[in-house]
């Protein structure tokens, strides 16, 4: 089963080398200038508050929507969060980043407000149950169960940045993210989309590191599956997305689908009666 091919080694090395590198462009402009920002805010600098608002408001709304189907309630949650930020700025002790502090406030507000709304009879809280009809979730030690049934076929995609120039692919990612169970979505949103450090994600959502790892793996796996579905046509072959490079197209044309299952992978879920 060992390939030993230079191309696979090169590809794996490329993946690992990317992982080791810090992101070139920070996800937000707050980092590195937080002390200055806090001084400005506490001195009543309206431009600084406006900058903070522009930087975070849409992201707070996206996080709020993970707690509720109601756009109106999500807007209320965001507004209440901002009001709490204004009230709390003087007392903020800097134990986390400003952004993480604000996300934490939002999560607390969202939990309280969505629970209150639920008690009133509004159906606004996500169920937390798998929404794709599958009852099988990946578990540590479970191998590929809950992750893939047939061996994954290479996508032959190059840079995600260029792929994301495709509106369709962005929508696939957005929809996949939105369809995740509540806590999975919150973890993936904070960790992968917002790049909040792992420990801070645990603090914001009040979950253990182990739980976070499992939720993250499950969430990413579901998003991967959605991408995989999109990239294949009905016959099971890889459909070229709009922005494939010529090189990738050539590789796709000459590659053979992989049909071999991992040697020590457990039986597929349906064969084990799951």
């Amino acid at each position: 089963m060992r390939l030993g091919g230079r191309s696979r080694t090169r590809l794996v090395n490329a993946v690992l080398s990317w992982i080791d590198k810090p992101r070139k462009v920070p996800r937000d402009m707050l980092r590195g200038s937080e002390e200055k920002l806090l001084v400005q805010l506490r001195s009543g600098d309206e431009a600084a508050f406006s900058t903070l608002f522009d930087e975070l408001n849409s992201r707070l709304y996206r996080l709020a929507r993970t707690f509720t189907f109601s756009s109106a309630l999500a807007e209320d949650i965001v507004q209440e969060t901002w009001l709490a930020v204004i009230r709390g700025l003087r007392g903020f002790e800097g134990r986390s980043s400003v952004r993480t502090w604000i996300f934490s406030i939002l999560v607390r507000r969202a939990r309280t407000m969505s629970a209150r709304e639920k008690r009133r009879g509004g159906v606004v809280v996500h169920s937390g149950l798998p929404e794709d009809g599958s009852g099988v979730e990946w578990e540590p030690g479970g191998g590929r169960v809950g992750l893939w049934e047939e061996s994954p076929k290479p996508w032959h995609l190059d840079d995600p940045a260029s792929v994301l120039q495709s509106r369709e692919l962005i929508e696939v990612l957005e929809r996949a993210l939105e369809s995740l169970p509540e806590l999975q979505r919150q973890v993936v949103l904070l960790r992968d989309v917002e790049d909040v450090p792992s420990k801070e994600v645990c603090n914001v959502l009040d979950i253990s590191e182990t739980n976070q790892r499992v939720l993250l793996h499950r969430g990413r796996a579901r998003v991967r599956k959605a991408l995989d579905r999109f990239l294949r046509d009905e016959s099971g072959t890889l459909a070229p997305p709009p922005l494939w490079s010529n090189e990738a197209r050539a590789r796709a044309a000459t590659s053979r689908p992989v049909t071999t299952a991992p040697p020590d992978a457990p039986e597929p879920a349906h064969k084990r009666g799951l």
Partner: protein
Amino acid sequence: MNCARAIDLMGDAIEGCLAANLEEDFREHVEACIPCGTYFEQLSFTRRALALLPRRSRPSGRWNELMKRFKREFGGEDR
């Protein structure tokens, strides 16, 4: 290293926090095992793509109220 162990470690590998004593075995496995290697690449790709999702701007109709509260809370200080 078997597939189940490699899959368990993929999250840490993607985060760049794989324990040093596991790195070599993990690398060997994902290089040698086609399904795990492909899955790992796709999982990494997925994470990178999520990190690049564009933000949707969302105008707030309540901005004026917030600015009013901000001015009330901090207005006049150091001015």
